């Protein structure tokens, strides 16, 4: 058959190229969306600036300088914003608009889609860090823990992103888009206020012990251990791993394409 315009020549692109395309596309869409930017960047910046001002005026009691205690928690909050809330809402509407179903018929395999999403989350984390770290430094942040602390924090970000993204996908894959939108924001607010993510567990009195099992508290604890004491906090990391594994198992059972 002579070659016409549409003569078949089917085939999948190499997986790495597909994942890269997917990650870049999702990043672009996330950064273009005003609500997503609000959750990813504006709210963490406000939490940091507001917390530091409140600390200076004696509004909150912290064990150390407010900016040093709060910055690791705000970075943890930023992970939660993107990996949980943004991902859940975006994925909920992807299901609603048939995008997940459409990609399900494309050469992109399911693990390629997940890698793409993880890639997009990590790129947004970098953008968040680029904004939040200079703001914290301008407010007088002096990170403790040195290079070990930075590496421990990066490890906590990775494990935390895995835990929160599996929970975000669990929500997006089972609820309707509107319900996901409401629930993802509500859970985010509850964890922001009562989840020991920005404020250390010590600030919650007796409840602090119980809060330790929450993924928000675990990520906050791990970030504070890393960036205040330069320590790898094993127990919080294991708690995050447990959430990630449980969430992923539930997602693989319950996620619906449509």
């Amino acid at each position: 058959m002579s070659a016409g315009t549409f003569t078949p020549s089917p085939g999948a692109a190499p997986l790495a190229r597909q994942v890269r395309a997917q990650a870049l596309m999702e990043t672009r869409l996330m950064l273009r969306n005003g609500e997503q930017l609000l959750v990813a960047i504006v709210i963490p910046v406000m939490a940091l600036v507001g917390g530091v001002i409140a600390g200076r005026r004696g509004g909150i009691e912290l064990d150390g300088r407010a900016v040093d205690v709060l910055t690791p928690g705000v970075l943890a909050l930023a992970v939660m914003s993107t990996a949980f809330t943004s991902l859940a809402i975006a994925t909920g509407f992807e299901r609603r608009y048939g995008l997940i179903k459409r990609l399900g018929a494309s050469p992109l395999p399911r693990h390629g889609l997940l890698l793409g999403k993880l890639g997009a989350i990590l790129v947004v984390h970098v953008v968040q860090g680029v904004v939040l770290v200079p703001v914290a430094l301008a407010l007088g942040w002096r990170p403790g823990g040195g290079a070990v602390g930075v590496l421990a924090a990066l490890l906590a970000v990775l494990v935390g992103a895995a835990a929160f993204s599996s929970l975000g996908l669990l929500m997006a894959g089972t609820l309707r888009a509107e319900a996901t939108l409401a629930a993802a924001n509500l859970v985010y607010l509850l964890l922001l206020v009562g989840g020991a993510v920005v404020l250390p567990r010590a600030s919650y009195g007796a409840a602090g012990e119980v809060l330790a099992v929450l993924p928000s508290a675990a990520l906050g604890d791990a970030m504070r251990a890393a960036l205040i004491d330069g320590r790898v906090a094993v127990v919080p990391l294991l708690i995050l791993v447990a959430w990630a594994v449980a969430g992923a198992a539930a997602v693989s059972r319950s996620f619906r394409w449509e």
Partner: protein
Amino acid sequence: MRYGDLVAVDHLDLRVEAGTITAVLGPNGAGKTTTLETCEGYRRPQGGTVRVLGLDPVRDRRALLPRIGVMLQAGGAWSGVRAEEMLRHVAALHADPLPVGLLVERLGLAECGRTPFRRLSGGQQQRLGLATALVGRPELLFVDEPTAGMDPAIRRTTWELLEELRADGVTTVLTTHYLEEAERLADHVHVIDRGRLIASGTPYELTRAGGATTVRLVVTKPFPPHAPASLQTALGPATEVTTINAQSLLITGPADASTLAKVSAWCEQHGVLPEALTLGQRTLEDVFLQLTGRVLTEPTPSGTAG
């Protein structure tokens, strides 16, 4: 390699020949979309065998997907994505995609500009859906209600495109409830109703089998009771009388002077006043009516799940 595909939905066997356009025709809810989604591997059949390009759509999904192009009935994009951006993305998932600019031009997607997907018109979303189904240069194309929501001029452009694809060796399976679409495009039509195959053949075979001509009778007030039966008796076994609705009938058989005379006599005898008496060739619409006793319902503008 075998191109023939065997598709089963509730005891129904469909086979699709390579390099042809096959239409799955039926009313809303007939099982058209289910049939397509079973071929695409979205649904696991409870019984029977499905082979697409010789592969099992569920078990061999990863091998099959790069070779097929899928157009969903609706949606299939990010709500905030721009048309060309979406098309570029799907192109990037394939090894040897068509030039994006070519499809943008052929399907008139440039007019979508920077508008996000959720604000595109139904017809624009359909055209983007077709473009994303084509961009990977598939061997086999599944299109679900491809022209629902398109205006007539764009529908004709889309038909020309599908004919060009066939000329270039692409096999197309489409669902439709537009009879005109099936008659114009399809090499082979499978008429399905309530999940069962009720007729199968080329448009010519289907419309010319048995009586080729029709007489359509429309009257001013509803027919008397037992009207079709008494008219059938009056006309004899060479014709077939089917009720369209309370005030119209379809008579299939020789549309000659003798038939017309009998119809007139019957009208006089039963005191009904004809409003219109039309002679014509049998259409797929008539075939569906004869087979099911029902008319193919008019499509809703947005198209509904089939």
